[in-house]
């Protein structure tokens, strides 16, 4: 690709040209990606986004455009990873899918129905697990919240909760309060609560971002197991490229400002995946190499673009 450091040395004029070239490259990437989003089996996708855009503030200089022209489908039963640099609008995109915010342009739909508000069919696992749990409820009672949402009778709750506690490795902590648990355990509680909702789709917003490496790997494998066990559709946001590839059937790269879909990559790695062999697989490394380069260039382009804007003023 372009050697931006060299371009920087050549002066402002060249800098600006560099930015233009990067922009054109981006447009070219965007044009290609539309082809990649066709659903594989021709059926109705679980989630479909068309021309999705999001902006804050009114008009004029206070207006901030976060997302623009997002066209993306999520297939039924798919594990879709979305990566992007921090501040690239990943979380906003997920909040739109959860129905917690409304897009300012375009439409997101779930199984053909426009998403107009939150629904317990679309569970969301928040990154900040410590804030998302009810601190005055025990682990058991937090999980029960998901069952209460479904209207499960109190007597019928206990066996379901016991099973979920078992499946998420929380059985010994059932009667503890969230503040008494480690971060990894708290995130497990949140995942269990979301599963208790019996959602059609699980939206995960950098769920393991705040955890240590070892806990993160354990939870990655647990979520893969849960996903294959229940054939649940998952949209997984992360800033960790390797995590995205390791978990996903596809990886979508968000980038640019406002953010668009830059690239969609099919991950052809066999399942079940393994923390050692999968990560050593040449295909894994090739994906990593390609996506890393894409993200690095995108960061470089962003820097040069903002430098060029500064110079124009």
């Amino acid at each position, binding site marked *: 690709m372009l050697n931006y450091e060299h371009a920087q040395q050549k002066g402002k004029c060249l800098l600006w040209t560099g930015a233009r070239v990067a922009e054109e490259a981006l447009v070219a990437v965007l044009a290609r990606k539309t082809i990649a989003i066709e659903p594989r089996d021709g059926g109705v996708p679980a989630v479909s986004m068309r021309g999705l855009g999001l902006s804050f503030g009114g008009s004029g200089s206070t207006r901030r455009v976060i997302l623009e022209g997002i066209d993306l489908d999520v297939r039924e039963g798919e594990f879709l990873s979305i990566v992007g640099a921090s501040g690239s609008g990943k979380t906003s995109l997920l909040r739109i899918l959860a129905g917690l915010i409304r897009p300012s342009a375009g439409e997101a739909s779930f199984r053909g129905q426009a998403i107009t508000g939150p629904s317990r069919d679309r569970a969301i696992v928040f990154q900040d697990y410590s804030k998302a749990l009810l601190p005055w409820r025990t682990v058991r009672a937090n999980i029960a919240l998901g069952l*209460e*949402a479904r209207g499960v009778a109190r007597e019928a709750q206990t066996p379901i909760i016991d099973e979920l506690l078992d499946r998420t490795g929380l059985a010994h902590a059932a009667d503890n309060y969230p503040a*008494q648990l480690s971060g990894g355990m708290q995130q497990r509680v949140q995942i269990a609560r979301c599963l208790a909702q019996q959602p059609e789709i699980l939206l995960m917003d950098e769920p393991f971002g705040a955890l240590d490496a070892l806990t993160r790997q354990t939870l990655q494998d647990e979520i893969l197991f849960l996903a294959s066990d229940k054939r649940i559709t998952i949209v997984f946001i992360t800033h960790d490229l390797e995590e995205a590839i390791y978990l996903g059937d596809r990886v979508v790269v968000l980038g640019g400002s406002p953010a668009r879909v830059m690239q969609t990559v099919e991950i052809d790695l066999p399942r079940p995946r393994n923390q050692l062999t999968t990560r050593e697989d040449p295909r894994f490394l090739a994906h990593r190499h390609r996506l890393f380069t894409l993200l690095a260039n995108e960061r470089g382009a962003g820097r040069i673009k903002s430098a060029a804007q500064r110079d124009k003023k």
Partner: protein
Amino acid sequence: MSRLLRGAIVPLLLLGAWEIASRAGLAFDTLSRPSEILAALLSGLSDGSILIATAQTFNAALLGLAIAAVIGILVGTVLGLSPRLEGITGPSIEALRPIPAVAFMPLALMMFGFGIGLEASIVSYACVWPILIVTVSAVREIEPRLLDVADVMEMTFAEKLRKIILPAAFARINVGLRVGAGIALVVAVTTEVVLNPRGLGYSLILAQQSLDVALMYAQLLWLCVVGYLLNAALRALGGGSALAWRPAG
């Protein structure tokens, strides 16, 4: 236990000195002997007069506090959830709040006559403000993520209130209630001393008018005891099992 005994040394010595000094002839009209005060308190308790007066004062104070709590928590929750509404009502609240509750005594007397209504209305006016203001800020500062959770669970407003908002704001609302309880007792007794012929405040006035100084001191001592017990009861109510989830320290 030893700390309690050590804390009791100074008051006991003072009381002893006071008793000895007054028996030795160092007497004032406005000061009676500890032994007389104790005797007055015991006789008041045994003939039931102090207990009846206490019940009257507490009836009015608790009724007023309850009215204030219902209004304060309800309105405070609504205003806490809606910054726009709070912006509209804020100036009115700030204008009404500084009026001393006891200034409403003449008006309340015209509206309710003597009795519990007069007292409870003034108590509730005095108590509603701290409860309201604490509730507004407690609700406003609820973790927004918890409200997200409520939305994703498709909770109705009533469920959201019961399962998320009130538990999340409970600890701070409870502080407002405790502040309110202290005010309630002060205002109830004040109303009785000044105007309302019932309760401990009126007993004080009666004792003063019959120049029964020992009984006055006995009633003051009694007020000290019930005030302390009231606050302890509210603290136990709020700080006990309901807040077990809070990490220690």
